[in-house]
C-alpha cells in the first residue's frame, strides 16, 4: 500500500503491521522529504487526503535534542492541531536545521524543524474522517540517514519508522 506523499517533494510512505497499533514507514531522498512523507502518512490515517482542499497554509516549528524525538514531536504536533483546531493537511514542506558541534543531550533544541503545511479546516460533511490517532510513540522508532552512515533503504535514501497508537 505504498503511496506518494502528496507534497511538493516526492517522499513516500507505507504502513507496516503492528498488532494493536499502526506502523508507519516514511522514505525520502533526504531527511526533509522523509519527515514530510511521515506527516502525509499520519494525516492519511486521520482524514482521507483525497477530500482535503489546499485552501490555507500554516507554519509549524518544533525542536528536539535528537532526530527521533523531533519525529515524535512533529507528528504529535500535527495530532494536537488536528484535534484542537480542526486543521487537516494534505501538503507538507519541511526544512530541518541542526546546531553545529558534537551531540549534547542537554541542548534540548539542538534540532529544529520548520514546516509549511497546507490544507483547510475540518468540514465533517465533506471530509471522510478515518481514525482517532492518540499519539506517535517511541517504540521501535528509527531514523536512518545515509549522511550519518546508516540506512537500510534500498534506494540509499532516508528511512523513518514509527509506531502510532490508534
Amino acid at each position, binding site marked *: 500500500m505504498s503511496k506518494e506523499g502528496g507534497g511538493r517533494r516526492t517522499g513516500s510512505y507505507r504502513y507496516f503491521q503492528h498488532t494493536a497499533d499502526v506502523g508507519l514507514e516514511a522514505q525520502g531522498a533526504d531527511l526533509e522529504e522523509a519527515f514530510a512523507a511521515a506527516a502525509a502518512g499520519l494525516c492519511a490515517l486521520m482524514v482521507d487526503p483525497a477530500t482535503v482542499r489546499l485552501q490555507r497554509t500554516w507554519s509549524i516549528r518544533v525542536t528536539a535534542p535528537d532526530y527521533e524525538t523531533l519525529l515524535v514531536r512533529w507528528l504529535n504536533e500535527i495530532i494536537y492541531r488536528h484535534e484542537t483546531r480542526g486543521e487537516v493537511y494534505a501538503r507538507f514542506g519541511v526544512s530541518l536545521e541542526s546546531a553545529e558541534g558534537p551531540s549534547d*543531550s542537554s541542548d534540548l533544541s539542538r534540532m529544529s524543524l520548520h514546516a509549511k503545511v497546507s490544507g483547510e479546516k475540518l468540514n465533517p460533511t465533506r471530509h471522510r474522517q478515518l481514525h482517532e490517532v492518540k*499519539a506517535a510513540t517511541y517504540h521501535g522508532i528509527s531514523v536512518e540517514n545515509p549522511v550519518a552512515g546508516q540506512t537500510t533503504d534500498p534506494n540509499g535514501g532516508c528511512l523513518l519508522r514509527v509506531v502510532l497508537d490508534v
Partner: protein
Amino acid sequence: MAGWQGKLEQIDANRWRIPRGYKSGMRVDGIIYADAGLLPSIKEDQAPEQVANVATLPGIVGASLAMPDIHWGYGFPIGGVAATDWDQGVVSPGGVGYDINCGVRVVRTNLTEADVRPHLDQLIGALFDNIPSGVGSGGKIKVERREMEEVLTRGAAWAVEKGYGAPEDLAFTEAGGSLPGVDPGKVSPRAFKRGHDQLGTLGSGNHFLEVQLVETIYDPAVAATFGLSAGQVVVSIHSGSRGLGHQVCTDYLDVMAQAAKKYDLHLPDRQLACAPVNSSEGQAYLSAMAAAANYAWANRQCLMHWTRETIARILGSTPERLGLSLLYDVAHNIAKKERHTVEGRQRVLCVHRKGATRAFPAGHAELPAAYRSTGQPVLVPGDMGRNSYILVGTEKAMAETFGSACHGAGRLMSRSEAKKETRGAELKAELERRGISVRATSNATLAEEAPEAYKDVNDVVRVTDAAGIARKVARLRPLAVMKG
C-alpha cells in the same frame, strides 16, 4: 515480522517463565499466563520480548507479568502487569498507556431479552443518537478551565453532583471514581485543550457500548451477590480519558526521557521511559495520571447517565423501575499505590496495569461493602460477535499477580489485516442475521474491530479461571452493539 524465538520454560499448565538470564538487564523473571492452546498466538509477535524488557525496570518486584490476553503493544505489552517498589522503584507512563483509565462499567437491568427484543433496534439507534461517539466527536458537555479542574480533582463525584447519576454509583466504581493527589497544574494546557469538548464522548476504535444478555451463570452464589441471573439484560460501556489522557501520556514521556538521563536509567526501549516514583518527575506524572483517570471516571459516569435515560425513554419507564443500577466500574490502564505481601513482607508498591484488570479478593478493604464477602467483579469485554464475561477476584491473584487478571480478548490481527479479511457492511449484515443490532459511525472501524481480529475471549477466560487469578461468574452475549 518473524515470531518470537526467545527462551520459555513451562511452570505449569497455565504459566510460562522467561528466565531472568534471558536478556541482560532483567531484574526479575517474566511470567506469561497461557496454556498450550494460547501460546502459539502469543509467540507470533514480539509481546514476550516486551515482557522481558519490562523486567529491566528499576525496582520491579516479583516478576514482569503478562495476562492471557497479552499482545504486542509499545513499550509494555498490552496485558502487562508490573509492580515496582514505591520507595526504590520507578513509575513508567508507558506502563499505563495513552488511554489513561481506559475501563469498563456494567449496568444491570431487571429486563429480559423478551422485554427488550421488540425495541432493540430502536434502542440501539436512540443510544447512538444520544451518546456522542466516533472519530472527532465533540461532547454535549463543555466545561471551562475552573470547572475542568473540578472534574480532574473529583472524577465521577463531579459528574454525580452535576446530576449525571446517583451518589450510590460512586461506591461501585473502582477507587470510588476518584484518585487522590491531583494537582491540576501538573496537567498541561494542551491536555486541557484536548479534553475541553470530549467529556461525555465514547470515542472510537475499540470503545463501545453493548446491550448484552446474561447467557450462563457459573457461580450462582456470587452471581446473586452481584445481582446477576440467567436471562437478564445488562449494558456494558467501554471508554477512557479521551484526548486529555493521550496528551498527559505524550507530555510525560518527554519529561521521563529527560528524567531517565538525569537518574542514569538505561532502558531497552525508549517507550519505557521512567523516573523514580519518589522523584519530582515521578510524582508529577502520578498527579497528572490521577487527573486523567478522574476525567475518565467522570466520562463513563456521564455516558452511563445518558444510557439510563435513553433506555427508560424507549421503554416508557424510569431508570429506578427498570433496575438500572451500576454493577461495577473497573480501570484497565492505570498505575496504583497498593499494599501487597511479597515473600512474607508487606510492601507499598506502584502497580502498573497496562491492559489488565484489578482482581481483588473477598475481604479486601478497598471493595464496596456489598462485594466484601465475594471479591470484586472483574469485567472482561470480548469482541462484538462472541462473548463477554464477569469474573470475581481471588486470593490467588493477590498472591501471584498483585491482584490482577485479564482485561479483554486481546488483539490477534492488525487493523489493516482485519480490514483485508472483513468488509464492515458484510459484518454488520452477518451480525444482524444472528439477531445482533449494530450501529457504527463507520464501516471501516467495524471491520477493524471484527471478531476475527481478536483472540477468542472464551480461551482467555478459560486460562484466567484455570490459573485461578479470577473465577468465572457469568458469561454474556451481545444483543446490540454501538461502535464509535
